[in-house]
């Protein structure tokens, strides 16, 4: 099998970064997430290839928090669209975990199917190669296997690396992956190494049957109880690798400007507030319920899988201590 010795990791990242923007899991100051290798500070930043999980998912690589869509110019009563900003620059996500790859699969379902392709997303997606880092030692908040994700075999990744201690086993799975592997071929060796075994999860939850059960629970009093602690801050939606809701807004300066989109959160009142005053999800409970039903019932109905990949980030981030695994358990028991 092909392996990359860990001593050659930085050389490999440097090599990949010659032809693509490479995003790596790293700690920077108090935060951690997927940051560009170009901006990686060798003294202050720390690579976090062992972490499960870094605080922020890699979703910003394919779906930036704020993204310009097109610019315009006014001319009297006229207006012209000047430029559409479709980003096709070569990009690599290095060290995405199986949960994050599964979340990108959900993004592909949303942005690339059901009648329309989202051009901005597609352009980035087509030009991004995903190198997944298989998991063998689940973290304290990991529960991906409960949500149908295989931590050791992220099926749709272009390349899978497996941490054996001293080396990474390097396996290209797609044409994109093979092409990228060729760029670092001289850093790889052939060697037989032992692949680790998956250790037990400390967090488990029984998702089977939840979507079907929720279909009859829209008016259940459990939502009052579950939502009571929620402050609708929306941090769960920002750290979630599979939350994709966005807003479209405009920035105008004088006679020119641009339209952009940015992350939005279903936890906010304005999300569904209509101009005439009506809001179908006026109360915190209604918004909370919609978020969890979307994750556990609606997405399942529409795309055949839950919109939760078990990464545990929302459990870590929630200031109110709300846990989706506890919610699933309460639904099961209700």
């Amino acid at each position, binding site marked *: 099998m092909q392996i990359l010795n860990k001593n050659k990791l930085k050389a490999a990242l440097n090599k990949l970064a010659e032809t693509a923007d490479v995003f790596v899991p790293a700690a920077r100051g108090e935060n951690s997430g997927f940051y560009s290798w170009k901006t990686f500070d060798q003294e202050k930043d720390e690579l976090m290839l062992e972490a499960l999980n870094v605080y922020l998912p890699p979703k910003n690589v394919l779906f930036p928090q704020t993204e310009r*869509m*097109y610019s*315009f110019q*006014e001319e009297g*009563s*006229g*207006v*012209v*669209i000047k430029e*559409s900003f*479709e980003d096709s620059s070569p990009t690599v996500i290095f060290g995405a975990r199986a949960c994050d790859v599964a979340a990108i699969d959900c993004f592909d379902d*949303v*942005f690339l199917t*059901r*009648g*329309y*392709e*989202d*051009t*901005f997303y597609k352009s980035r997606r087509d030009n991004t190669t995903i190198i997944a880092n298989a998991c063998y030692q689940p973290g304290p908040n990991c529960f991906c296997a409960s949500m149908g994700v295989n931590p050791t075999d992220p099926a749709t990744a272009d390349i899978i690396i497996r941490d054996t201690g001293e080396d990474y086993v390097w396996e290209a799975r797609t044409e994109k992956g093979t092409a990228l592997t060729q760029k670092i071929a001289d850093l790889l060796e052939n060697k037989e190494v032992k692949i680790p075994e998956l250790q037990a999860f400390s967090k488990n939850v029984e998702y089977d049957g939840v979507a079907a059960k929720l279909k009859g629970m*829209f*008016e259940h009093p459990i939502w009052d109880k579950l939502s009571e602690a929620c402050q609708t801050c929306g941090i769960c939606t920002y750290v979630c690798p599979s939350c*994709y*809701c*966005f*807003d*479209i807004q*405009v920035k*105008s300066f004088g006679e020119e*400007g641009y*339209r952009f*989109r940015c992350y*939005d959160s*279903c936890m906010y009142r304005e*999300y*569904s*507030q*209509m*101009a*005439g*005053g*009506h809001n*179908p*999800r006026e109360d915190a409970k*209604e918004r909370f319920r*919609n978020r969890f*039903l*979307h994750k556990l*019932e*609606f*997405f399942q*109905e*529409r795309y055949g899988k839950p919109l939760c990949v078990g990464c545990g980030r929302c459990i870590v981030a929630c200031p109110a201590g709300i846990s989706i695994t506890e919610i699933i358990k309460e639904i099961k028991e209700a």
Partner: protein
Amino acid sequence: MHQCNCENPLLPTIVEVVDIKDETSDVKSFYVKSEEGVPFNVMPGQLAMVSLIPVGEGMFSVSWQEEQEYLQFAIKRVGLMTDELHKIEVGQKIGVRGPYGNGFPVEDCQGKDMLFIAGGIGLAPLRSFIKYCFKHREDYGKIQILYGSRSYDDLCFKDELFEKWPQEKDTEVYVTIDNAEEGWDGHVGFVPSYLEELNPNPAGKIAVTCGPPIMIKFVLQALEKMGYSDEQVITTLEMRMKCGIGKCGRCNIGSQYICLDGPVFNLAQLRELPPEW
């Protein structure tokens, strides 16, 4: 059906506002035209995103497409973007993208008697179906239109309501206003109670309704009481929308996106969804 005429479905086409007509004191009709005529073809009940480019975008029902001549949008002034839209003048260039959504089931309704029930600006989306029926008059049976508003001034499309539509073959138009006012000798009262008074027989009929949520609620109750089945009742829904293509998330009711799977549903379909409509 879900096809956009541009390569990037989120990019608007620039069109010119060629005419603006006051419908009421807070509703204006905007007639828009592209260099080729219409920017895209629309079926009755479909939606389009209208943008005053430097200000904002809003989703509206297309109230009529006149051949390859123009698209008409009847738009009520209710918020930031529509306030600005009501200030523009003929000749202004604006953006449109679409068409979005499923539209009314015009073919499934062929051979049926049609009962249209609208309140306020809710007539705007229904009007595209009403005019479609008149255009294909032989495909539909008797046409009854019941329309109400708060006052005489708030009635949209007055020339059609009082002049044109009553002249159409086998057509009845019933108009009501909420409260009596000087000069009005027509019916006074709310739409749902007028509907109960008229008591139109459900046999062979499809009822199509749109209006304020409270009106829809009572209209649906009245129709049920008169014996209309859930499959005979159609409505068109409204939610806040941003993308129009089922991606941005906010217009969901259950697993359905109003911009993509709707906005038109029959009552049997709606009863399958959470009661957020």
